[in-house]
C-alpha cells in the first residue's frame, strides 16, 4: 500500500455533551478511496467536517501530509490553515444548494483561485478552460448561471470548483446521492477517471452502500459516532464481522427479484 497522507487519532466531537464522533482512528493512503458509511446521525458528516476543520473537534488529532511535509491540522491557527485548504477540498451533496445562483459558472469556479492569490487573469482563464475540459463541460458554460444546468452538470461545476486548486485530498459528502441513477453513473465514472488522471485521494461519505461498494477501496462503518468496523471493501461486504454492518447490508433491496429482501431485526440484534 502507498504512503499515508492523513492520520486521524482519537478524534471526538461532542454536541451539548452528546458524542457525535467518538474516538475515531484511521489512516488514509494516497490515491485510495475510503468510504465512510452509516445511517443518518451516525456521525459520518461530522467526522468529515472535523477533518476539514469546518468545525473544531473536542479531542484528537488529524495529521496531514501536505506539500511541505506533515502538519497537525488541529494545532494550526485559521491563518496557517489557509494555504492547506488548497490541498484539501470538498464536493457537496446538493448541487442546487452548493452553487451561488447569482454567480456565473466562471465566477464560481474561479473564486478559489482568487482567494488563494492567483492574480494573473490569463493564468486563471487557462486553468478554467483546463478544468472545464477535465469535467467535460462545454466552454460556453462559463458565462451562464447555475439555474441553466441540470443536476448532473451542476455537480460537474462543483467538482471543477473543488479541483481547480489541484488538491491532493477530496472529501465527497454524499456527492452522488441527489442524482438520478443514470446521471449518478456518469458522475461516478468521472470521479474515477479524475482520480486516475490526477492521483487524487478520496474520502467518500455516503449512505448508499451500493455506490460505496463500487467506488471505494476500503470502508469505515460508523454507528452512533463510533467506527464499528473497518477494512477492505470486499472483505467488509462479503464477510461482515459486526452485527451493525450485517444489519446495514441485509437492508439493501436487490434489483434481482429472485433475491428477496430479508432485513435483520435491529431489536433482536440489540442495536
Amino acid at each position: 500500500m502507498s504512503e499515508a497522507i492523513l492520520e486521524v487519532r482519537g478524534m471526538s466531537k461532542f454536541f451539548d455533551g452528546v458524542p457525535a464522533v467518538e474516538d475515531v482512528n484511521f489512516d488514509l493512503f494516497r490515491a485510495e478511496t475510503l468510504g465512510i458509511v452509516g445511517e443518518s446521525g451516525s456521525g459520518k458528516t461530522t467526522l468529515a467536517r472535523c477533518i476539514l476543520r469546518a468545525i473544531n473537534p473536542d479531542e484528537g488529532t488529524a495529521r496531514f501530509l501536505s506539500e511541505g511535509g506533515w502538519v497537525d491540522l488541529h494545532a494550526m491557527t485559521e491563518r496557517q490553515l489557509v494555504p492547506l485548504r488548497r490541498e484539501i477540498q470538498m464536493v457537496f451533496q446538493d448541487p442546487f444548494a452548493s452553487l451561488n445562483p447569482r454567480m456565473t459558472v466562471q465566477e464560481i469556479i474561479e473564486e478559489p483561485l482568487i482567494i488563494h492569490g492567483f492574480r494573473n487573469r490569463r493564468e486563471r482563464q487557462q486553468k478554467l478552460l483546463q478544468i472545464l475540459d477535465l469535467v467535460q463541460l462545454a466552454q460556453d458554460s462559463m458565462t451562464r448561471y447555475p439555474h441553466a444546468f441540470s443536476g448532473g452538470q451542476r455537480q460537474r461545476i462543483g467538482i471543477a470548483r473543488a479541483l481547480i486548486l489541484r488538491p491532493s485530498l477530496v472529501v465527497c459528502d454524499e456527492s452522488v446521492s441527489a442524482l438520478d441513477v443514470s446521471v449518478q453513473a456518469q458522475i461516478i465514472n468521472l470521479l474515477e477517471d479524475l482520480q486516475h488522471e490526477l492521483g487524487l485521494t478520496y474520502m467518500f461519505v455516503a449512505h448508499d452502500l451500493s455506490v460505496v461498494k463500487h467506488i471505494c477501496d476500503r470502508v469505515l462503518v460508523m454507528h452512533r459516532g463510533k467506527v464499528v468496523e473497518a477494512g477492505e471493501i470486499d472483505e467488509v461486504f462479503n464477510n461482515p464481522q459486526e452485527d451493525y454492518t450485517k444489519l446495514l447490508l441485509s437492508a439493501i433491496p436487490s434489483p434481482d427479484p429472485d433475491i428477496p429482501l430479508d432485513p435483520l431485526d435491529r431489536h433482536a440484534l440489540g442495536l
Partner: protein
Amino acid sequence: MEMEDPIVSIRNLALAFKTDVGVTKALSDVSFDVPRGKVTAVVGESGSGKSVTANCIMRLIQPPGEIIGGEINLTTNDGESYDIVQLDAKDPRIHELRGGLISMVFQEPMTALSPVHTVGDQVSEAILCHRDVSKAVAWQEAAQMLQHVGIDDIERRMKMYPFEFSGGMRQRVVIAMALVCNPELLICDEPTTALDVTIQAEILTLIRRLQSELSNTVLFITHDLGVVAQMADHVVVMYQGRVLEIGSVRQVLKDPLHPYSRGLLAAIPGLNDKRERLSTIASVVGDRDITTAHPLVTLKDGRQISLPASEIPEHLT
C-alpha cells in the same frame, strides 16, 4: 398488458403545463392498467412523469397544468365505473375518491403531516372526513391502525406531534392515515426515498405485509430498481412523459427488452465487478432516439413495448 380486472385503466393520457414561454408536455399518450389486488410499480428518472401520473389519478393537477386528453377509468370493487378525467371539479365523487377510494403516501413524511396537530388527531381526521362516526370511534379506529403499522405505546404516542417522531415513525403515521379508510387503491409516491436504508427495509416490509393482509391494490412510484424488484408484480417504465415498457417484474428486470430499461439496470452500481466502468444510459442506448414515440405493441409473452417493429425480436411478435 390487457388486464382482466384493472382497478384503474389509463388510456392515452396527455398532460401539459401552459406557461408564458410555451407549452410543456409532461405526459404524452400514457396508457397502462393497474391490476386489482396487485402491486404495480411505475419506474423512471426525474422528469419521466411518474409522479404527475399519480397526481392525475388523484385529480391533483393544478393550473398551469392541465389534462388535455385521455381517460382514467376507475372501476371500484362494487363494480361502479367512471372516468376520473371527466369528473367535474365540484363532483362529490372527487371527495370520495381522495383519501377514500384512493389514498396516497408521499415521499417526505414531515411535509405530509401537519406540524401543529397531534398524530392521533391527524389519523382520526382522515376517518371523520369520509365517514359519519363519532370522534371517540374515529380515535379508537385510528389507534388500531397505528398499532397495525407498528407503533407501540399507542395512547401516549397519539398525543404527540410529528416532530417528536423519527423519520421512519412519521412514515408509518402517513401510511396509517392512508390506510385508515380502507382504500381500494394505495398510491405510494417514493415513500422510502428520504429514509435510511435500514428504515426503508422496515417500511417496504410493512407495505408488503399490509398489502397481503388487506389485499388492496398498490401503485408504487419509485426511481429505485431495487425497490421495484422487491415490491412489484408488474412494472411500467417511463421516460420523458411516455411509457416505454410494461411487463411482469421478472420480464422487465431480468430480461428487459427496451434499450432504456437495459440502460437503467446497467447504471446501478455495486452489481457488476468492481472497477468495471458503470454503463450510462447513453452507452447502452447509443444513437437511437428513444424520445421518438412508437405506439406500445403487445408481444407474445404479454409485455408491451414502445419500439419500432424492426427492433423487436422476431420470436416475440
